[in-house]
C-alpha cells in the first residue's frame, strides 16, 4: 500500500475509480460470467461470483491498475480461480462438518452458536492448511486439533518424530 511511487499520492477520486471499474465491467463481465459458469456448472453461483469480483475491484482496485486488456483478463481469471476454490472449500467444509455432526448422538451435539463457531474455525484452519505441503499439514492438524504430542503424531503417520518436528508450525 505504501509504495514510493509519488504518482500514487493523489487519492483517486471516486469518479475516476468508478469509471475504471465501469470500463472493466463492460469489457469483461460477460466473459467472466461464462468462464465461471463453465467451471461451476451453475448459473446462479457464477452470477454471484462475477458480481463479487467487480465489487472487490471497487473496494480494492488492482495495485497498479492494468496496462492492457490481456493483463486485466489475467488478473480477473486468477481472482475468479481463487473465488471458485474458496466457494468449493466453504461448501466442502460445511458438508464434512454436517456429516461429522450427524454421526454424534443428539445429546452430544453442540449448541447452534457453537456449531457456527466450529464451522468458522474449520474454514480458517482449512484455508491455512491448503497452502502447506500435505504431509506437514496433516501432522500439524493432528498435533493441534487432537492435542497429540510429536511422538503420537509420528506413530500415527508412521514417520520419525524428528520428521514431525521438522514440519513445525505453518
Amino acid at each position, binding site marked *: 500500500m505504501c509504495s514510493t511511487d509519488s504518482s500514487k499520492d493523489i487519492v483517486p477520486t471516486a469518479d475516476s475509480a468508478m469509471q475504471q471499474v465501469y470500463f472493466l465491467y463492460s469489457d469483461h463481465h460477460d466473459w467472466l460470467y461464462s468462464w465461471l459458469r463453465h467451471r461451476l456448472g451453475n448459473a446462479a453461483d457464477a452470477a454471484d461470483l462475477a458480481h463479487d469480483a467487480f465489487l472487490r475491484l471497487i473496494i480494492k482496485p488492482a495495485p497498479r491498475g492494468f496496462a492492457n486488456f490481456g493483463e486485466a483478463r489475467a488478473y480477473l481469471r486468477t481472482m475468479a480461480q481463487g473465488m471458485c476454490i474458496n466457494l468449493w472449500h466453504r461448501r466442502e467444509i460445511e458438508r464434512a462438518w454436517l456429516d461429522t455432526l450427524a454421526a454424534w448422538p443428539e445429546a452430544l451435539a453442540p449448541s447452534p452458536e457453537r456449531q457456527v463457531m*466450529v464451522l468458522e474455525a474449520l474454514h480458517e484452519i482449512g484455508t491455512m492448511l491448503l497452502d502447506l505441503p500435505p504431509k506437514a499439514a496433516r501432522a500439524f492438524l493432528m498435533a493441534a486439533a487432537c492435542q497429540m504430542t510429536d511422538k503420537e503424531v509420528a506413530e500415527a503417520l508412521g514417520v520419525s518424530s524428528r520428521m514431525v518436528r521438522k514440519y513445525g508450525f505453518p
Partner: protein
Amino acid sequence: MEQAAEWYALLRSGEATHDDHARWQSWLEHSSDHRLAWQYVETISRSFEPIHATPDPRQTADGLWAANSRVIQRRRILTSIVALAGTGLFGWATWRHTPLPGIVLAQMADHHTATGEQREVVLSDGTHVWLNTATALNEAYHASLRRLCLITGEILIDTATDPQRPFVVDTPQGRLRALGTRFTVRLESDKTFLGVYQGSVEITSAAGTSSLIQAGQQTRFTTDASAAVEPADSARETWSRGVLVAWDMTLGDVVKELRRYRSGYLGIAPEVAGLRVFGSFPLRDTDDTLTMLASALPIRIQRTLPWWVSIEARTDADPHR
C-alpha cells in the same frame, strides 16, 4: 519461529519443568522478535479451541482433512485447465487469510512495536508519532506530500507544520488528512478509529466519500461508510504516556484494553465483567495493573501459567484478600 514452535510443543507436552518455564520466560524477554513469533504460534493455536470443545476433535479434524483433500483435487484440475497466469496473486489471496503476513509486514515496516511496547518517534519534519502496542507504520515522505501508512495497531500524532507539504495517514479504509493537529488513529478489524484532540482531520474513505472531524470529536469508518461522530474520549490519548485512564469503565472493557498489551491469554469471568472501574493504571506493566485491580475490586487473579491468567470473582475462602 521454529524456536517458538519448539517451546510451544514443550509447554504443551506436560513435561516442562520449572526450569523450562524460567528459560522460556527469558527467551521471551530476550527479543521482541521472539514475542512476535510466540504470539503468532499462540494465535494459530487459539483458532483450534472451538475444535477441542467438540465431542470428538479427532473426528472433526478428519472431516476437515477429507474436505481439504477434495478441494486440493479440484484445485489441481482447475489450475491445470488454464495456464497459471499470475500465480502470485492467488498465493497472495489465500496467504492474506492467515495471521502470518500481518506479522511479516509488521516486521518489515519502517517503525514497529511489539506487544506491550510503546515508542515515540520523531520524524524528519519534527512531527511526533507515538506507536502503541503491536503497531507497524511505514513512512513515505515526498517532495509534495508527507505520508504515513498505518499497517496495524494505533498511533498518536502531533504534526509539525509545513505549508508546502500536506500530511496524510493512509489506512486500508481510506486517507486522513491532517489540518494542523494532534490526533490518534487505530486500526480495528475492518474499521479505522479516528480521535481528534486539536485542529481537524479530513477523512476520505476508499470509496471516495469525505468528511471533516473537528477537535474534540471521534469516529470510526469503513471503506464505504462512516459511523456517527461522537465526543472524543480524551482519556484515550493517555496511552501515549503509558497510562490507562478508566473513568467508569466496566472491568470487561478494561480487560479488553489490557489484552492488547499482553501476549498470552487473559480471561475474565462473566460475573465480574460488569464491575465499574475508576482510576489510572500503568500500561507498561499490566501485571501490576492486575494486582492493583485485585486490591480495589472483589476479584481474584488466577495465574495458571505465566501466560494464562484469568480474573475470577473472589470468594470468602480465598486466603489473600
